[in-house]
């Protein structure tokens, strides 16, 4: 393989690769603003200038392809001076309002300022200001902080495939706005906050909720549809604050949709049932776990036939546990959008799928029958498992002779259920989903189960004695 030498370190490259990416493999992160792996290259911010031995001018590492034997230096005085100059230039008009900026702590401008910038400003004049436009429900624009890198414009054009962002005017007056100041029309607007290297575009959902340095992260999978986008869950003290895409070239590249991104608020919803609840009498009664297991065992004991309707966001591990606990029962899957995974298809050019559950394929592979063949009246007892975001058909428990709900239920969904055993949502548990491509994807738990909720496996093992006697 051909190679280049970056600051004395030899790195191999594939023909066509740019210096910036090859250097990154050697843990040498060249500062950048306009460059983003997932977007076209414009080489306009000049932050990534490096020196190549034998070449008179500094070159942009983001747009210069490697050639065999190339010697790249990123720390010469010329490079340092140039990078500090670009940095100073970008800060000339910057409001420096980091204390009230949501990007602080994860801002490229801030980081590069510490690493490559001057301590002082020489700019004594009035700073340029703008009036902000409303960009719709997802994104908040603060144009004063913008550094004109145009990532957002390219993101809209190339990823969202909408041509709604524009650089108006020129030079010092350049304004990055939406065309005719209209709100953005895309299901991927949230990604603008990811690609914007500064605090100019932030999500309204996360704004002012938490300083980012307090956040811990967990690697997870979005449970919003069968794509199974890889995500990072940011949380603190048991609360989830935001979801962001995590790069996976085979599934979601660097992106995720807004529906997925903001689809975690149900976890902490005040109407979520957080303790085992007995609904057999007209009075709703909260139970402790041993009372709850007893109640469940009683219901199971009298049932000669059991049917389980499982929302297709149960993990493979939960499926195994369910099958083990109910060896004689019949299993049905439930998803929104499709009955069987063969009906699943892409609903846009990028990621979103018709099947609004993350693991229908996993359930089918375990032999679950489609929802269309499920009739609650055929069973003495129905167990409704709702393990994540997918909501089971409203009121279906009313059709069952007797029923237990396991998983995530909301107070307004309890009609017809005799007993509710609260279990974890996707982000409160670890597990595996099979996505639309048939890919098995594992994820870690982000937060502790909310309230008295427990992992489904624990609930099942506590009652398995009772269940085995059935049939």
């Amino acid at each position, binding site marked *: 393989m051909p190679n280049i030498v970056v600051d004395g370190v030899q790195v191999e490259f594939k023909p066509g690769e740019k210096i910036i990416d090859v250097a990154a493999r050697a843990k040498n992160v060249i500062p950048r603003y306009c460059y983003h792996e997932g977007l076209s290259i414009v080489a306009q911010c000049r932050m990534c200038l490096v020196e190549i031995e034998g070449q008179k001018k500094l070159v942009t590492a983001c747009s210069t392809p490697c050639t065999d034997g190339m010697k790249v230096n990123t720390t010469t005085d010329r490079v340092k001076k140039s990078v500090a100059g670009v940095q100073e230039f970008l800060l000339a008009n910057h409001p420096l309002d980091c204390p009230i900026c949501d990007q602080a702590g994860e801002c490229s401008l801030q980081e590069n300022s510490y690493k490559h910038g001057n301590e002082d400003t020489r700019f004594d004049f009035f700073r340029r200001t703008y009036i902000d436009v409303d960009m719709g429900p997802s994104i908040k624009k603060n144009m004063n902080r913008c550094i004109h890198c145009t990532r957002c*414009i390219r993101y809209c054009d190339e990823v969202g495939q909408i*041509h*709604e962002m524009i650089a*108006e*005017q020129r030079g010092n007056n350049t304004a990055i706005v939406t*065309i*005719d100041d209209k709100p953005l029309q895309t299901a991927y607007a949230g990604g603008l906050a990811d690609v914007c290297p500064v605090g100019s575009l932030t999500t309204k959902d996360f704004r002012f909720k938490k300083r980012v340095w307090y956040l811990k992260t967990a690697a997870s999978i979005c449970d919003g549809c069968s794509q199974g986008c890889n995500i990072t869950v940011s949380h603190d003290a048991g609360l989830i604050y935001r979801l962001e895409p995590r790069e996976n070239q085979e599934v979601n590249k660097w992106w995720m949709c807004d529906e997925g991104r903001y689809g975690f608020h149900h976890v902490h919803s005040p109407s979520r049932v957080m303790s085992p609840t007995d609904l057999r009498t007209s009075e709703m009664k909260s139970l402790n776990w041993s009372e709850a297991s007893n109640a469940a065992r009683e219901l199971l004991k009298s049932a000669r036939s059991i049917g389980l309707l499982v929302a297709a966001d149960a993990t493979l591990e939960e499926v195994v546990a369910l099958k083990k606990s109910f060896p004689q029962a019949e299993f049905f899957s439930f998803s929104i959008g499709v009955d069987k995974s063969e009906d699943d298809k892409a609903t846009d050019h990028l990621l979103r799928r018709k099947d609004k559950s993350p693991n229908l394929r996993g359930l089918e592979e375990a032999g679950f029958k489609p929802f269309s063949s499920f009739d609650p009246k055929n069973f003495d007892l129905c167990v409704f498992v709702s393990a994540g975001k997918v909501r089971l058909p409203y009121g279906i428990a009313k059709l069952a002779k007797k029923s237990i709900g396991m998983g995530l239920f909301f107070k307004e969904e309890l009609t017809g259920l005799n007993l509710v055993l609260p279990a974890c949502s996707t982000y409160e548990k670890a597990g595996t989903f099979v996505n639309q491509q048939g890919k098995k994807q594992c994820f870690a738990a982000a937060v502790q189960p909310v309230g008295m909720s427990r992992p489904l496996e624990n609930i099942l093992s506590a009652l398995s004695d009772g269940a085995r006697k059935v049939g």
Partner: protein
Amino acid sequence: MASFGKEFTTEMERIERFYPNKQAMLLPALHAAQAERGWISDSTMQDIADYLSIPKTRVKEVATFYHMFHLKPVGKYNLQFCNNIACWLRGSEELIHHAEKKCGIQMGETTPDGNFTISEVECLGSCGTAPVCQINDDYHENFDVQALDKVLGEMK
């Protein structure tokens, strides 16, 4: 969508073979549209976008980038003063003030009768004959107050 006149379409058809794609024809299209309609309104941008089958964002970016595209209606005579260094050193400021006084308007404005607009432009590339004023398509070089009075008188 208002359609363009014959002149615009003939011009576009004439130049099409010189350009690699339709987006590349944006600048000549803006010129031709401005020649036909006097200025580039929002709906003209949309018309150009439709004509070239490109997003309106691409048209607006270019139209707002270049000062020679008028985003508001201009007067019958558009006095475009260069105020860059060479012209400025040679007295463009004084000329501008004089024109403002004569026409009774400020820089960037148009007289109520729609006759004159005064605007400032970047270097007209004629520093050797500074100060320069471009009135519509014509250069007036080595300009001075007397010459300005003269043309203003002729243009009434």
